[in-house]
């Protein structure tokens, strides 16, 4: 009971101190019977707060990050607007039906056929609109077809999180995707397409880098490193600065690819509730099981 009361008092004083409402001396005078125990802790806390609060990100980093953040937000908004228009035009059945019926059926709806035919002609039918670019008139030099990639990437991520063997077919899909886009001039891409591609490359790099840190299963590490290297080449072509990447010396294993230090955070999928969310163990370095990082 006494310990609990002390912790309550400590927190009350800390909160007031951190919010600038009270000095250490004022807190000590409020709780004279606890002052001997409180003082060293409050002073240590004041030092901690002071030290941490002095560390600020460089202003140019803040602004650069803000530009990228807002650009990504704008690209998402534009892509979403394109999805909304296309879905409205194509009716409730989506593209899969039109792909099955064929061009004759698509031509029956002239306005919808302009956008839908462009998508069917560029990458096959049955695609979700999200990530495929706006169905504007005129052929795009490259239309993003991320469905296969997304599926393969999700499988890789899932395998990485579970420590499961990597499916060879999914790695081949990733490899083919990477080689395909290495052959494309990024200046021919529209802004939203380029942003989506950049995001995909970034995610792919992070996932593959995570896999290089020891992966059981039939896929040899060399193959993963090879795809990782190709991904890095594609990232360089896009002018991407990969998170945490630094040209550090290779590990004693002697891989050709410099050791990356990405921050792989699979797209959060759900909002964590305070109670039902399975909290990661705070005492160990466990794999996060928070639903915010579970694939859909």
């Amino acid at each position, binding site marked *: 009971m006494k310990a609990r009361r002390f912790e309550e008092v400590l927190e009350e004083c800390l909160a007031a101190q951190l919010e600038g409402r009270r000095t250490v001396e004022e807190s000590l005078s409020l709780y004279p019977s606890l002052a001997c125990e409180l003082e060293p802790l409050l002073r240590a806390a004041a030092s901690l707060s002071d030290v*941490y609060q002095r560390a600020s990100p460089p202003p140019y980093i803040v602004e650069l990050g803000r530009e990228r953040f807002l650009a990504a937000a704008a690209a998402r908004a534009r892509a979403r607007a394109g999805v909304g228009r296309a879905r409205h035009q194509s009716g409730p059945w989506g593209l899969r039906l039109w792909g099955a019926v064929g061009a004759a059926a698509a031509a029956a709806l002239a306005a919808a056929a302009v956008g839908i035919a462009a998508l069917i002609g560029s990458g096959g039918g049955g695609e979700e609109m999200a990530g495929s670019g706006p169905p504007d008139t005129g052929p795009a030099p490259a239309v993003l077809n991320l469905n296969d990639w997304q599926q393969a990437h999700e499988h890789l991520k899932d395998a990485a999180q579970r420590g499961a063997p990597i499916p060879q077919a999914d790695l081949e899909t990733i490899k083919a995707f990477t080689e395909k886009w290495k052959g494309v001039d990024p200046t021919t891409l529209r802004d939203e397409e380029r942003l989506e591609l950049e995001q995909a490359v970034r995610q792919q790099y992070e996932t593959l880098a995570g896999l290089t840190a020891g992966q059981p299963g039939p896929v040899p590490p060399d193959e993963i490193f090879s795809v990782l290297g190709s991904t890095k080449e594609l990232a360089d072509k896009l002018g991407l600065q990969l*998170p945490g990447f630094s040209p550090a010396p290779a590990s004693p294993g002697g891989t050709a690819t410099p050791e990356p230090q990405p921050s792989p955070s699979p797209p959060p999928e759900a909002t964590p509730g305070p109670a039902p969310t399975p909290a990661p163990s705070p005492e160990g370095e466990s794999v996060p099981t928070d639903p915010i990082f579970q694939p859909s």
Partner: protein
Amino acid sequence: MSPNGEAHGERLLVDAARAGEEHALSELYTLYFPRVYRYILARTGNPYDAEDLAEEVFMRMLEAIERFQWREAPFSAWLFRIAHNAVISYRRKDGARGRASPLSDGLALDSQGPDELVENRLALNEVMLAAEKLPEAQRQVIALRFAAGLSVAETARAMGKGEGNVKVIQHKAIARLREMMGQPKRAKVYEGKKV
């Protein structure tokens, strides 16, 4: 502004950001980027990684903000949950390579003059080295409370723990840090004064 007023203001901001309003997104970024950066710096000890990871956290936030719901957890707790998981993923790889993350000269510290900069850098380095020796939960509480500036309630939500538990962890963490940083167990004897 009263705490309720601030909470209401943030709720409007977050809701506007969820709707895709650029000014709201920019405002959220301004409000939280330095705090996320400090939190990640406190957890990783590497300013370059803190820069990159902080940016990554905001990209992830962007992907998920539409699905964010106002339940009992405030927005800050949700955001720092993302940051925490990003750090965990980062440390899995860093730990796998056995690589340390010493504090870099590239760290920007609010200082007046080179002497103070050196002093501040040394102080932060000392704190960082000591904090690395704390158990994970204590280190996280220190980072959330003192680096990120979260309240106990927000810290508890971010960690998925009860507030009482967080207060206990906080007490132990501060006491242990103080011990490791070489301060005497008891400072000068406080002479009680009549208020």
